[in-house]
């Protein structure tokens, strides 16, 4: 049989083989080379749903709830799953315009942050009310789902600086700690920041399978990979809610700060910084940005926590420390009288003092706040090794101050604590010339002026240290964790000792008691309570002097140590002293005696912000 076209069978065979090869090559490309398809597929079919833990609550030391959680909702969307939805109804339910809808649904897909096959946030911070309406129709909108978030609510308008606020994580947080994912909330300031790891809990994840309409059809691998979320620990803070609110009331319409510490534990009972703001303003929600901007622009700086961020020359409240250092260094004796001729006079140098009887001993020097006395004993310390060896003496002094927690961070859990400033011999070497300065140059340090700068927290800590007769705990805002055996960090259970012998404290404390009983701060007397205090008037080159007071009480077995700072308040006894005593009375007695109500009124009504 003749078949002249038989050769063509090879062409046809070749066609079949080549075509099959092309199909196989395509399969190789799809299945073996191109892994992006695999990722897209699993991203869309298996979906990760975050289960956000509820953030730990914050209580005051008497377990009154200060910070609670409010539900808020983030609406998520997976672009690829959005199909046939009634946009008019959708927009109406959420109260957004069509333009917003289109814009939100089409973020910049070119950026790595967004993918059409992965869920992203469509609308953040939907209130519970809006959610309640929307939720009924959620099933009509394939591709959309809701994640429950917790934001903060505050039962009382108080302690905003201390409690801090939470916000969304930024790039830095994400880089620093792999736990966080974009969109997570994190403590930005205050307790929220300091105890973030305790409060945040552990995020849980559900892996679910979704069908083509975005409906959840089951769990992936029977839920074996799912993890439960663990709620954050509830924190019992050291704050006394009543005292905190009372302090804010007393300091209203003034600029300044109050720090009250329990000496025996270092727990911060109150930390007031005025002016302040309503913590509910900065809770996560719509409109927070505007509130923040307004606060940030306020000339009174309400966002600024003066208790740890303001540094002032301490003035006379430094004198008890000066006395302790001099006694410890053996350059003076308890019963050493030093005459005061209306001030400290050395050659042409003159530091004025006010009229008072001659200080016959350290106690009286403190009682009358004699400048001449403390200038003298300061010089005695600095000139310990000889007049020409001032730097050696100053180093000794500096070292003592460090051990009082001055010139360094106290290691408290209040974020952004400043160090204050304790000048060193190197500083003066730089300022003058090495060896070219002597004790008279720097004598004002002895009375808390000059280059010495202290924060209100450090002042309160000095008070607590004296009350403890020589040691302090780093001040902290946490007392314990509710229903949890977790201990507070070790550093808040560790005593820091000064280099002063316990015996030297007696005359100093006696002197501080006399300040209140018969000295510069008689106004701070509280019937039935032995209060030890010291006034201070910090010089202010920009205006009226600052009114300062430190105190602790009761004298035996002190329960509270306090520092009050009122900017432009004048003498320490004018505002800071009375406020301190009111705070102490409030804390120890729970209320203010009728005899002192007038003082309370006067303090509350004083307005220094005019």
């Amino acid at each position: 049989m003749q078949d002249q076209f038989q050769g063509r069978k090879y062409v046809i065979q070749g066609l079949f083989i080549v075509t099959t090869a092309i199909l196989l090559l395509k399969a190789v490309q799809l299945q073996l080379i191109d892994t992006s398809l695999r990722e897209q597929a699993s991203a869309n079919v298996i979906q990760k749903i975050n289960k956000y833990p509820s953030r730990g609550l914050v209580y005051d030391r008497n377990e009154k709830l200060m910070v609670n959680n409010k539900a808020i909702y983030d609406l998520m969307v997976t672009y690829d799953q959005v199909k046939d939805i009634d946009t008019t109804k959708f927009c109406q339910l959420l109260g957004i315009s069509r333009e917003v809808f289109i814009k939100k649904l089409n973020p910049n897909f070119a950026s790595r942050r967004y993918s059409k096959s992965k869920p992203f946030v469509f609308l953040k911070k939907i209130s519970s009310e809006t959610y309640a309406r929307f939720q009924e129709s959620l099933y009509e909108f394939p591709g959309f789902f809701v994640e429950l978030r917790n934001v903060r609510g505050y039962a009382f308008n108080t302690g905003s600086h201390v409690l801090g606020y939470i916000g969304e994580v930024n790039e830095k947080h994400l880089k620093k700690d792999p736990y966080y994912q974009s969109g997570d909330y994190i403590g930005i300031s205050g307790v929220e920041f300091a105890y973030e790891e305790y409060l945040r809990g552990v995020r849980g994840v559900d892996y679910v399978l979704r069908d083509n309409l975005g409906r959840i059809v089951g769990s992936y691998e029977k839920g074996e990979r799912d993890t439960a979320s663990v709620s954050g620990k509830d924190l019992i803070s050291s704050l006394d809610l009543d005292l905190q609110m009372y302090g804010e009331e007393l300091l209203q319409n003034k600029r300044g700060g109050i720090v009250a510490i329990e000496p025996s534990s270092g727990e911060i009972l109150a930390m007031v910084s005025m002016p302040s703001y309503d913590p509910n303003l900065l809770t996560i929600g719509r409109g927070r940005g505007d509130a923040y901007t307004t606060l940030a622009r306020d000339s009174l700086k309400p966002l600024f926590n003066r208790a740890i961020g303001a540094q002032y020359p301490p003035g006379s409240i430094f004198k008890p420390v000066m006395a302790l250092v001099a006694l410890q260094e053996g350059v003076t004796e308890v019963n050493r009288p030093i005459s005061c001729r209306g001030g400290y006079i050395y050659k042409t140098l003159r530091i004025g003092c006010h009229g008072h009887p001659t200080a016959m001993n350290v106690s009286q020097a403190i009682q009358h706040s004699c400048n001449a006395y403390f200038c003298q004993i300061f010089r005695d310390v600095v000139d310990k090794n000889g007049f020409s060896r001032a730097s050696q003496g100053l180093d000794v002094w500096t070292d003592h101050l460090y051990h009082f927690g001055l010139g360094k961070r106290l290691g408290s859990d209040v974020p952004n604590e400043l160090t204050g400033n304790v000048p060193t011999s190197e500083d003066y070497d730089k300022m003058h010339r090495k060896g070219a300065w002597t004790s008279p140059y720097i004598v004002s340090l002895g009375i808390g002026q000059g280059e010495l700068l202290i924060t209100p927290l450090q002042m309160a800590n000095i008070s607590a240290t004296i009350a403890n007769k020589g040691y302090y705990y780093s001040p902290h805002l946490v007392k314990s964790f509710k229903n949890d055996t977790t201990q507070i960090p070790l550093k808040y259970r560790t005593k820091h000792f000064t280099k002063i012998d316990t015996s030297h404290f007696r005359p100093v404390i006696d002197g501080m008691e006399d300040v209140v009983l018969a000295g510069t701060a008689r106004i701070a007397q509280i019937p039935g309570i032995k209060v030890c205090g010291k006034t201070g008037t910090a010089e202010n080159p920009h205006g009226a002097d600052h009114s300062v007071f430190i105190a602790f009480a009761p004298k035996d077995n002190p329960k509270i140590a306090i520092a009050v700072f009122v900017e432009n308040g004048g003498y320490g006894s004018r505002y800071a002293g009375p406020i301190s005593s009111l705070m102490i009375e409030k804390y120890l007695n729970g209320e203010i005696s009728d005899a002192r109500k007038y003082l309370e009124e006067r303090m509350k009504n004083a307005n220094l912000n005019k």
Partner: protein
Amino acid sequence: MTTSRRGESNTADVDWMTISIYLGLVLTGWLMIYAVGYRGEENSSLFDMGTRHGSQLVWIGVSITVGFVIMLIDGKMFRTFGYPIYIIACLFLLYVLVAGRVIAGSQSWFDLGFFRFQPSEVAKFATCLALATFLGPYNANLQTFRNRAIAIGIILLPMGLILLQGDAGSALVFSSLLIVLYREGMPPPLYILMFTMIILTVMALMFDSTFPIILGLTLVASGILVNALRTNRPKIIFFSFAVAALAVYNIYPEYELYVLGTTGLVFLILLIQKLRSKRRQLAILLTVGLVFGSGYTTVVNYAFYKVLKPHQQDRILVWLRPSKVDPLGALYNVTWSKRAIGSGGLTGKGFLDGNITKLNYVPEQVTDFIFCTVGEEQGFVGAFAIIMLFLLLLLRVLFIAERQRSKFTRIYAYGVASILFFHLLVNVGMTMGIMPVIGIPLPFISYGGSSLMAFTVLVAVLLRLDSDRLSVFR
């Protein structure tokens, strides 16, 4: 050869290899349909008629029975009744046009109450038989225009009727029968022309304007002219020019007119030079080709983008320019189909563990997109096996075709191979995004009794005819 090896019986064994491949593919298909429908252990009864895999199992039984019956029929019947079967099939096609049921947009279903079937499936078989009947006689050939026209007409008649039903996919299947005509002597230039037209069409659709195509064609034509020169230097110069022109065009698309103008000038210079020489034919041919090609692509491009409606454009754009198509609209099937296959990796997710397949992400999963399940659950290993099994079947059918002494059987066999080939290429190709999505099933594997039955008949008749190969000369 005049006597059979078995003496009195003039029948050879049936081709068990083909039957094995057939059974293998059918079984695989059934397992895949089962996998798609699988929703957990509680409702996994294998033989539940209410489920797809249950009903498919029944169809497999029926198909094998029918195939068995065909093996018992005298092979002469198919030779004798080739035309009547073809005519009846065409009448069916006409009938559904008038009274058929519309399913999925095309009026191609014939409802018999207990089951529905597509006459187009019958038409494939009938057309193969008709072609074999027409070209089968010893003296029939494709050397005359009349015979060529008739042969093409036999293909075009059912194709046209099916196209009228709105089932473009099934209609296109018939074009594969041109392979049969090629084997039987249809002149190659026809195929070259067709191939060129297809390429030009595809290119015309791939660009917004036909500028780059015309530029390319001009460069190619000029290149051919230069290549015909004896000396080498102009070749190098022209090569440099071509590279420069393409570079400029790519970097500064706004200068396209200048680039094209310069290229056209170069072509003209070469052309004039060539026309002066003795071998004018080439020059004239190239000029005609260039003008025709440019004109044709421009017309196609214009017609496609300006005349066709967007949803009609989409079907082609999904294939050629997926970036221009809405990923949630027309591209949805293909995107998910590719993801399903891609997610299978080398060894797949395991039988019954393909979650994309299960969660209805790929529409028409059990019918046209069944290959996704293979790709997802069995991975590349599975895809490779299926494709290779098909290749084996195709080559086996070609082998069977070539061992016939009967021209009738050979032509029929080529018809079978061509149709299977087309289905394989387009179906598997479309699930992987290299072919346009035209809804045609994967033979033996896709869900659907009508299609399984039709392919079974197609193959069974081939085996029946093949088993007569020792006794038939015609």
